[in-house]
């Protein structure tokens, strides 16, 4: 069965410092990978997906099939980046995970200190 691992429950960095949230997955096929974010008192929302290769709010993530990783990176952290971040995997196709059930990691709580 597929699995998503986020090794850090909590990550605290200073404003302006680089950020890297780690995500590793286990699946023998070619999954779709996503990062979801939940800001304080807001709903879970899609941040970015690997197939679009886009940068959202300064965040990027590259799928490394050799290392089965999909780490989320941002060169200069901002205080508004403080949130809960979830890495997720979909087995079939795009649509932001709406075409089938997502497998989520346990999440990393990112705190940006001023």
């Amino acid at each position, binding site marked *: 069965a597929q699995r*998503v691992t*986020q090794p850090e429950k909590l990550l605290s960095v200073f404003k302006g410092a680089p950020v890297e949230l780690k995500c590793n997955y286990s699946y023998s096929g070619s999954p779709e990978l996503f990062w979801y974010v939940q800001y304080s008192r807001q*709903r*879970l*929302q*899609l941040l970015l997906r690997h197939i679009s290769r886009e940068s959202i709010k300064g965040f990027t993530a590259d799928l490394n099939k050799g290392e089965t990783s999909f780490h989320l990176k941002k060169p200069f952290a901002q205080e508004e980046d403080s949130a809960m971040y*979830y890495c*997720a995997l979909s087995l079939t*196709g*795009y*649509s*932001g*995970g*709406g*075409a*089938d*059930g*997502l*497998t*989520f*990691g*346990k*999440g990393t709580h990112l705190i940006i200190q001023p």
Partner: protein
Amino acid sequence: DAGVTQSPTHLIKTRGQQVTLRCSPKSGHDTVSWYQQALGQGPQFIFQYYEEEERQRGNFPDRFSGHQFPNYSSELNVNALLLGDSALYLCASSNPAAGEKLFFGSGTQLSVL
């Protein structure tokens, strides 16, 4: 558009009871998925409904069942509640055929005593 709406927001039940949670999808969305999020965990996929049928199911027992109505709204039913069913239940809607991404509701917090 109110987005995905769920009711109730909070619910307290006792062991052995049955519960029904409700979800209205975002306008234009025809697919509804349900997730269970225990404290300190990521969401776990329960099942997905499309065209009033269960299209996909996660690793949850038969005590968890659902329904989708012609207006695309959905219900999640849990029978014979256990203490371990205490969690935040999230509904998410999408329209995969239209390339619409997944939108989540705010969830229903279920406490089983």
